[in-house]
């Protein structure tokens, strides 16, 4: 399989910096041990192994584990038509990864999105601003301790600061809940069942001052 060969070539070059490629459903995942080297690895993958298309970068919040965050890169080559996934971990204290905008321009917005949604900074990014939420929003919505309804904020100049009223809905399931009862969807505040973080006060949007 082509992807397997390419992964091995990458591994041969970087040795212990990369884990053995793990296969799941026909896709290869390699763990990058040292996040600082990600740009070098990506450059080599792009220039020598022809992974010229950066499909996507995304991030995961492994709440309650250490290191807390993972960043996932999806690479693809037009010529050899193989996918490769690189994954690295960053702790909550560092919360910083070198940018790969120097390798692919498309990384620009992906990294901004991760910064916005997860709060991971990218060192060397040319323009690291929020992209989906507005500038000045104090939270990072995709973190697991952020409830889907939002948290109250008090940033002056921005009008909408209360949590969205859930009004009893939607039926929320706890991902990976311990037993069937916990996993069963029901109207409840997310996270409060699975973690300790305090949920938002469920006050409805008040009308009028």
């Amino acid at each position, binding site marked *: 399989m082509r992807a397997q060969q390419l992964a091995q070539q990458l591994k041969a070059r970087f040795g212990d910096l990369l884990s053995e490629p793990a296969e*799941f*459903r026909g*896709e290869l*995942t390699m763990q990058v041990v040292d996040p600082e080297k990600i740009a070098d690895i990506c450059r080599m993958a792009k220039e020598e192994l022809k992974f*010229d*298309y*950066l*499909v*996507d970068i*995304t991030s*995961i*919040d492994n709440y309650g584990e250490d290191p807390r965050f993972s960043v*996932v890169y*999806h690479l693809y080559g*037009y010529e050899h*038509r193989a*996918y490769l*996934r690189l994954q690295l971990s960053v702790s909550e204290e560092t919360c910083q990864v070198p940018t790969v905008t120097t390798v*692919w*321009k*498309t990384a*620009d*917005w*992906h990294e901004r*999105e991760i910064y916005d*949604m997860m709060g991971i900074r990218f060192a060397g990014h040319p323009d690291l601003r*929020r*992209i*989906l*939420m*507005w500038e000045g929003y104090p939270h990072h*919505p*995709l973190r697991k301790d*952020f409830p*889907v309804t939002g948290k109250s904020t008090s940033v002056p*100049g921005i*009008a909408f600061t209360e949590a969205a009223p859930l009004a009893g809905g*939607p*039926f*929320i*399931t*706890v*991902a*990976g*809940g311990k037993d*069937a009862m916990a*996993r*069963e*969807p029901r109207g409840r505040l*997310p996270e409060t069942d699975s973690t300790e973080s305090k949920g938002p006060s469920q006050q409805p949007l008040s*009308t*009028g*001052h």
Partner: protein
Amino acid sequence: MAETRDIQFRDVAGQAAEAAQALAPANDAGEVELQGEKMVLNMGPSHPATHGVLRIVLELDGEIITKAVPEVGYLHRGDEKIAENMTYTQFIPYTDRLDYLAPLANNVAYALAVEKLLGIDKELTPRCRFIRVICVELARISSHLLGVGCYAMDVGAMTVFLHTFTEREKIHNLCESLSGARFTTSYTRIGGLSRDMPPGWMEACRQFLKEVVVNIDETETLLTRNRIFVDRTQGVGVISREDAIDYGLSGPNLRGSGVEHDLRKAQPYLVYDQLDFEVPVGSTGDSYDRYLVRIEEMRQSVRIVHQCLDKMPGGPINVADGKVVLPPKDRVLTRMEELIHHFLNVTQGINVPPGQIYFGHENPKGELGFYINSRGGGTPYRLKIRSPSFVNLSILQRLLPGHMMSDTVAILGSFDFVMGECDR
């Protein structure tokens, strides 16, 4: 009349200052301004040519754009966060509303992604595969019809819009008889489809195909050699092959620049390897090429649907696994095992193994990918939507500078983006 709230607006001067700040790095302190003052122009988020709620802050020198800062996120609805709190099946309606010009294609993409994670993508029934391909291609036709129609309207030709919408309404009718809704279809289920085609649907579809080719030809007559249209689009917004790849473009925008990449060919899924179709590519990468690629893709889609209708196999539409697909109602009401399956399926969702997958689907707008990270159980731990429009738009900051102000509209239209999917 509902009560309203008073809201403190940031004053106009403050917003202008903010916009100027966004553009600040352009003017280094020591630079001598010989050209006179540059003007900052705010376009959007409510502007007819931005197809929704895109905002672009443009810096102009006379009529030439010197810097463009696209601002997205005005339609950020939190889909990814919502997905983490739902079972896999519950999320299907949300996929409709990503690229709302082609909901059927999104449904199929999402279902295929979850099926890949479940490891049942090889077990899909043949009939289901063919119907899904028809769905995707109808969605492609529908999306491109709107894309071309709106593009023509943006550059000044209203007729084309009304013309293509006539065909779109026919697709809506087909969708309605297929799924029950005009365009928020939610038609697929994990492991199959929500229902089979109604009787007579195939004939209606054939009839539609006959009519749509006429319409496509007429649209071409109106546009392809139209002097005004050609003048406004040819040589405008040229994306080189290298840039297109570097910025990760996909779909017609990538192929317009001459890169022959189509996931239907490169990573064949469903039954695309059994079908005969071509992938049109452009040569120069300008707006006109992107338009031509869309037109040709519609023709190819028509071809594909014809082939699918001819080859349509019989048999069931859902995989036989009661743990994935809801069992038929009469059995649920009479048998214990099916009852249990039904109950677990509805209350806890499909039990998905731990693992992570990425599935990319050739959507009308480009590569729509779903990355799902599961830790087992009924909900995704993390679901990332790789939306083509989001990535496609990121090239604007490079593409727009150097063009005339009025070209912005011609370039934006040729990108054919959807903000619902861009902002998610």
